[in-house]
């Protein structure tokens, strides 16, 4: 040893090595000699099976505790390809009501990993599974597991909000594990799923439990977290019925503008999510695909529409707040159209000389064509972004669209630097052109006016952070709020107002604005508005290809609100 007279590092090291090797040898003796028979038994005849106990998926309820989605007990039948005897194919097919050959197909597909069980049938009731259970001893390799089935109590009303679940098919999922596929089921999957329990058992070649595996403890499942929505199931149900009665696809959004709670986000046509939970059949799937109105499509936040004249509320706020016009400013009269270069920009009738209140009340386009030229397209774009347009309002609604606010950058990209002009500004001022918004965004605009800018961002989860208002202060002046609110009331109360007929028999005090969005085919009908008493509600109704906003969407909005308030005993 170099320079070190003592030999202690040598003997110390060698004794450490010896101790470590003795440890290994001792464990080897324990495993192979003392417990050898036990393990040999395990590996030749028996093997260890991990039993997974699914965790109950979290319950979803509405704001009043009405249960919208929970789980009911159900069973799945699966088979281990390496242990299953193909001679039993016919028996199993008969018990499971499968068509001949179907079972072999499933087994052939799964034979790549022969010791991994493959699902044969899922979502079976106790009655159906009992006949198989009685025959289980005759068909080794087949097993029955509990796998709770997701159950939707108001399937059609909440199909788009909740979405649906399906069997998980990833590498690390267990048999019968369900995961959210769409909607909140997908977005909140981590919260809702819980943690499955685990047990290890020693089973023999026939799948009978010999004993619990020694030395490892089992783990109990941890139930998934429950979720409460801000939605009022009654209001949602009323909105769906009213929309369905029009016979056209459409959406209705109602928000409590004091706290941002989304009370209703209805979209029609609807579908039954229970079909997906229990396993959809080919016929049902084809029926959905064949429906041209696409029931799977969510229209309250995942669809965008030209806001049309409802956007004039924003344009008017901009003109007034920036001091471009005053309440009594009257531009040149409306003769039914305005010619710019060689393009004619039409209005739906000749309105004559109007101020801003009258222009909103009668929804005159020419007033806005003339006044909007006092500002620029980028100013208007920037201003409308303050109302939540052009960006997502929530972070939990799957597929929520941002909509589109065209500014000069966007138009330059689309049409080239000289490919557009003042005409684009005129179109946008009345909510046409490239402008797009979701019904949710339009309801928020109504809510901002109703709350005089105090409305927090909308949300659909009852437990959520309170955020700052959508609109920062000083974007809209007090007088602009006064004037636009007055105009929205006159839309309903004035004989010339576009909502006068829809609300003439109503006991509601309603502030509103209609919109008729030009599009290929019949126009989309829109209405936005709010009631203050007895509840602070902001609403947006869109009926696709419904025609005129005042005559189609207006009555729907009125019916939804008054039926709801009457049912609650508020009016």
């Amino acid at each position: 040893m170099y320079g070190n007279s003592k030999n202690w590092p040598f003997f110390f090291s060698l004794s450490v090595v010896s101790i470590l090797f003795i440890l290994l040898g001792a464990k080897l003796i324990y495993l192979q000699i003392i417990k050898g028979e036990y393990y040999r038994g395990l590996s030749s005849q028996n093997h260890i099976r991990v039993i997974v106990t699914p965790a109950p998926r979290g319950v979803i309820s509405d704001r009043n505790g009405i249960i919208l989605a929970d789980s009911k007990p159900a069973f799945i039948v699966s088979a281990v390809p390496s242990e299953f005897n193909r001679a039993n194919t016919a028996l199993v097919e008969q018990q499971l009501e499968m068509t001949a050959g179907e079972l072999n197909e499933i087994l052939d597909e799964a034979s790549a990993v022969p010791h991994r069980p493959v699902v044969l049938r899922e979502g079976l009731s106790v009655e159906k599974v009992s006949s198989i259970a009685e025959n289980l001893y005759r068909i080794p390799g087949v097993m029955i597991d509990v796998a709770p089935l997701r159950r939707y109590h108001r399937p059609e009303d909440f199909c788009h909000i909740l979405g649906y679940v399906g069997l998980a098919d990833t590498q690390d999922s267990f048999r019968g594990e369900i995961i959210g596929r769409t909607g909140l089921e997908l977005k909140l999957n981590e919260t809702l799923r819980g943690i499955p329990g685990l047990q290890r058992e020693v089973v023999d070649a026939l799948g009978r439990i010999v004993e619990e595996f020694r030395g490892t403890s089992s783990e109990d499942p941890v139930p998934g977290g429950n979720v409460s929505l801000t939605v009022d199931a009654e209001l949602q149900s009323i909105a769906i019925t009213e929309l369905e009665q029009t016979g056209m696809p459409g959406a209705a959004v109602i928000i409590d503008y004091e706290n941002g709670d989304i009370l209703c986000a209805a979209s029609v046509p609807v579908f039954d999510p229970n079909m997906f939970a229990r396993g959809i059949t080919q016929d049902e799937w084809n029926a959905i695909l064949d429906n041209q109105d696409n029931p799977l499509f969510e229209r309250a936040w995942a669809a965008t529409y030209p806001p049309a004249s409802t956007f004039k509320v924003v344009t008017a706020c901009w003109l007034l707040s920036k001091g471009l016009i005053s309440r009594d400013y009257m531009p040149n009269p409306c003769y039914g159209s305005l010619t710019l270069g060689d393009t004619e920009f039409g209005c739906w009738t000749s309105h004559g000389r109007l101020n801003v209140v009258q222009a909103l009340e009668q929804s005159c386009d020419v007033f806005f064509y003339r006044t909007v030229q006092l500002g620029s397209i980028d100013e208007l774009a920037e201003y409308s972004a303050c109302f939540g347009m052009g960006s997502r309002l929530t972070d939990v609604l799957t597929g929520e669209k941002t909509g589109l606010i065209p500014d000069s950058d966007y138009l330059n990209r689309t049409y080239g630097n000289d490919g557009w002009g003042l005409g684009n500004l005129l179109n946008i001022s009345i909510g046409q052109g490239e402008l797009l918004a979701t019904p949710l965004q339009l309801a928020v605009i109504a809510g901002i006016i109703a709350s005089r800018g105090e409305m927090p961002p909308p949300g659909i989860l009852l437990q959520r952070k309170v955020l700052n208002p959508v609109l920062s202060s000083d974007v809209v002046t007090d007088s602009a709020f006064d004037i636009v609110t007055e105009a929205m009331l006159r839309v309903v109360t004035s004989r010339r107002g576009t909502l006068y007929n829809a609300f003439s028999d109503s006991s509601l005090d309603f502030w509103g604005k209609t919109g008729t969005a030009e599009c290929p085919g019949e126009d989309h009908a829109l209405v936005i508005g709010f009631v203050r008493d007895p509840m602070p509600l902001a609403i947006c109704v869109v009926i696709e290809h419904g025609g005129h906003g005042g005559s189609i969407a207006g009555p729907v909005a009125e019916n939804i609100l008054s039926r709801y308030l009457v049912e609650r005993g508020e009016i």
Partner: protein
Amino acid sequence: MNEGRFKLIGRDRPDLLLITSVVILLAIGLSTVYSASMVVSESGLFRRQVLWVGIGIAFFLVGTWISFRRLEEISPVTYLLVCLLLLITLFLGGGPADRWIIIGPLHIQPSEIAKAGLILVTSWWLSSLRVRPRKFGELLVFLTILPAVILTLLQPDLGTSVAMIMIVLAIFVWAGYGPGWIYLIVSPVLAAVSSIHIIFWIIFMCILGLILYRRKYPFSSWLIFMGGNSIVAALTPMAWNLLETYQRSRLITFLDPSSDPHGAGWNIIQSEVAVGSGGIFGQGFLQGAQKELAYLPARHTDFVFSVWAEETGFLGGIILLATFFVLIWRITLAARKSVNSFNSLVTAGIAAYFTIHVFVNIGMTLGIMPVTGLPLPLISYGGSQMIVVLFLLGLAVNAGMYWREV
């Protein structure tokens, strides 16, 4: 060191017992990889392993032939290159767990090479400190090895980085730093671990006090070690409580993968069943039932010992353990007789490398150590490791032959 300036001529015969045990282990390794590869879907595993052994033997010869003095000169540069490789792996790593550098058909695992680099650089530092002592010299050694350890930890490969530290500490022991000194060095880690129970904590502090007393440390050292470790132990539970539940469970799974019953825990159970079912005489070559049922994970790499123990039983298992013991013993003897401190420390580092890998890997398959990715040297499938290990063994044989050189 009286003969320090003389170079004694002549060499001993190569240690035939050492070489024999290497040959036996290579034979066991090749046959087990062959057996395990029968059920692996990836073809050509065995042929490639034979190729690695062939290349490895060439490196072995290089190891026996190379001059230790030259090796000492290039040790720092070698270490820098190793760190560079690890850095590249961190950004461009590929393969499973991103631990490989892939150049065309070549898959290099730099963390395996890094272990050899650490042995060289630590030995270089310690032998140069012996000639020219510096203040806080030991601290400099630790600062030098830190980059390689941290880069490996970031891969993330906790097992390999802990193994690296263990090897370095073993070289320190060989250089004459006593267990008490090692205890002081690792005391913050021990303090953090012992904070889980008051009894552990009291035992830890008693041993600490005893060591400080026996080494006659001044009052300031008492203050630093006792106070510092008390703070560490007090902060550990607080830091733990600050973590979110999911962060904690992630940390636990990271430190102890067997706590994750879906993943590594399952592997351990299957491995124990495979080893246990081997009994005294084993199931016979190519007959491992657990292996054939494809229950056993990573059969040809990390869990290769399970296949061997299942097929050859206790008899085979003990033969393998005994051969490893003989190998380590012979390497340690070579380290002991080397006159030059660098040669001696490198060779001791190689012995430590084998001890740690064998104990951790086989311990894992027997369920007494946590699951880490440490392979079984000379047995597990893998090119980088095979070549590095055979090169190191060549160095050990070299050191035993030219032990008189200074």
